[in-house]
């Protein structure tokens, strides 16, 4: 098998033939705590704050810039979930993943009220396969319009991934 790594630390099969790739780029990060009054008046959160890593295999996610940087050209699976709170009476909710190459909508509605539960919050999740070139970046974009800047972003922590961002190099 062709390889650049004769010690083979990049594919690690177990005795039962399960294959792990411990150096493969893969990350999961969350918003560390709730964020009040983040948007609602059209303020675009881009990149949206995602500042607590749960794992970052290969160290490609930056909790300072809230962006993932592709270390190599390939196809990446990128998922996100964002919760918003206190959004009653607002109108537009736009949530997307933006890479250097493309923008992928998760939700774009003109009436966010249709999604709110009785606690005046809601969440949306989406995932995409994204083509990325080496050094391209990916981040979350979130914006709510139609009212005051009173819409919050729901909390995340090490056990609750309500607002999170994740990705992995697939092939």
């Amino acid at each position: 098998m062709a390889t650049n790594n004769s010690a083979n630390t990049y594919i690690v099969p177990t005795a039962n033939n399960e294959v792990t790739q411990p150096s493969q780029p893969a990350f999961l990060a969350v918003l560390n705590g709730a964020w009040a009054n983040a948007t609602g008046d059209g303020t675009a959160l881009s990149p949206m704050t995602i500042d607590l890593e749960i794992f970052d295999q290969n160290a490609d996610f930056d909790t300072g810039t809230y962006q993932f940087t592709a270390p190599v050209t390939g196809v990446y699976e990128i998922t996100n979930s964002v919760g918003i709170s206190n959004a009653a009476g607002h109108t537009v909710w736009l949530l997307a993943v933006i890479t250097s190459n493309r923008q992928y909508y998760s939700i774009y509605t003109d009436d966010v009220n249709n999604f709110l539960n009785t606690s005046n919050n809601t969440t949306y999740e989406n995932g995409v396969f994204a083509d990325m070139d080496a050094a391209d970046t990916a981040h979350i974009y979130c914006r709510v319009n139609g009212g005051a800047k009173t819409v919050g972003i729901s909390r995340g922590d090490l056990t609750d991934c309500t607002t999170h961002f994740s990705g992995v190099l697939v092939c």
Partner: protein
Amino acid sequence: MATNNAANTYITPDANNIVLQPSQPAFSAYLGSDDDNQTGAGTVFRIGDTDVGTALTEIFDQNADFTTGASGGAYFTAPVTGRYVFIAGITVDSVSTSNYEFNKVETSNRRYIICSWDGSAVVNAADEIFTGAHFICDMDAADTAKFFTVLYNLGGDTVDVQGSATLETYFMGYLLV
């Protein structure tokens, strides 16, 4: 190449260099028939809970890590520490005026939210809602993953979880890296 398997049956490229991993943990299962009256008044219903509903039907279970039905719900058990992808979808019926639907995938390490919204505002004309999502999850060996739904604010548990071979409700996953 260092390997636990000199015959290399864990990665099998074909003549066109398409790579298969025939022993890689991967499963796909669905609810084959409706589980009626499972939630609506705040009762948490875990898919494949054989105490109150039916076991799931497997489409495939490469490496045999998925338990289709059990008390407390169907579950996947990670055979090795790694990053797993889970894909979950559910259709609920008779949502009526329930204004709070909450679905999650829960692993031993963490919870991943699928939806938290006003069900009565997003139902279709047949009084049904489908929601689905997928997540990249860290799991340690022997950790488990389940999938649940709960709806609130109805007078009783009158919401049905729909199942059929058309995959109205399903749970899938695989070891990615």
